[in-house]
């Protein structure tokens, strides 16, 4: 299909979005990720029944924590799409990338960079 999406998005593969725990999202932000999104299967289509629904709840908790710690809730998002929706995948990547570009670098990354300098 040769679909284009931003190359600076790092993909971490997991067997099911339900494998993504709250701490994984927080650790990514702690390590300087400007944004994190979790892509799960369409709701109702989880091979493990509830994996993507759990993932959504964890993303909600992550948003709450990021908001309360001053990092900002918009740096995390949950998306649902099926394995057959390649073009939707590219669209999501572009959409999320655009959002993060607008937000600018994460205050956590800036703090790490300042410390290293």
């Amino acid at each position: 299909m040769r679909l284009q999406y931003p190359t600076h998005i790092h993909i971490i593969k997991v067997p099911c979005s339900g494998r993504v725990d709250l701490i994984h999202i927080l650790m990514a932000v702690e390590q300087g990720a400007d944004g994190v999104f979790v892509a799960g299967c369409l709701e109702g289509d989880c091979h493990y029944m509830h994996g993507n629904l759990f993932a959504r709840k964890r993303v909600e908790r992550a948003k709450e924590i990021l908001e309360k710690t001053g990092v900002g809730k918009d740096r995390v998002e949950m998306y649902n799409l099926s394995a057959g929706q390649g073009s939707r995948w590219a669209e999501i990547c572009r959409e999320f990338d655009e959002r993060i570009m607008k937000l600018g670098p994460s205050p956590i990354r800036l703090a790490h960079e300042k410390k290293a300098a």
Partner: protein
Amino acid sequence: MIKATPKPLEEIIDFVKDYNKILVAGCDGCVTVCEAGGMKEAKVLGSALRLYYTQAGKDHEVVETTITRQCDKEYLEELKDMMENADAVVSIACGCGIQYLTENYPKKVVFPGVDTHFMGINADRGLFEERCAGCGQCVLGTTGGICPIARCSKRMLNGPCGGSEAGKCEISKDTPCGWHLIYERLETLGQMNRFLEPVDPKNWRSSRDGGPRVIIREDLRKAEPQHGSAH
């Protein structure tokens, strides 16, 4: 087991914002089971605090750990080095654990990271229900195994009251009437004669009404008892 829930993050941040070496101390006991104060929750809280300090540009060192039980001295001793290194501690054990930690490290500032609620059961994942109020004189033997103290909103010994309707308590249509449950259970057991005679008032001195309680089990103790008489 004891049921607790995480305190709102903003409350915890407010406690610790002026300290910079923080120990988040979890407990592998009850609070791990109700997913409020185990290693997973300690890691999440630790991470959240680091995010807060980092974005606020504050120097910090946040470490997380858990011990087998915070309500036991020998496990609390394992925390010695970490406690020494911390300016402030957030304990996410139940209220008992938090207090015993404080008692054993009297010079340290300890904050609660959870709200402790009650003794209860795990009805489902994320669904905890109160079952026992620790009254110190169990009456389950005469109430069909259903506690009128914890499950009747009025802690009545001779129920149900006039507020019981269609099996629900008058406080809310979502609350089963404890005495309705007892009635049904005694009917199943063929023990309805329980209702023929009212039960005498209970001695509430063994409950919270008698002040903070102490249990001395002479058969379990090694040394001479050090406390006054038990209630």
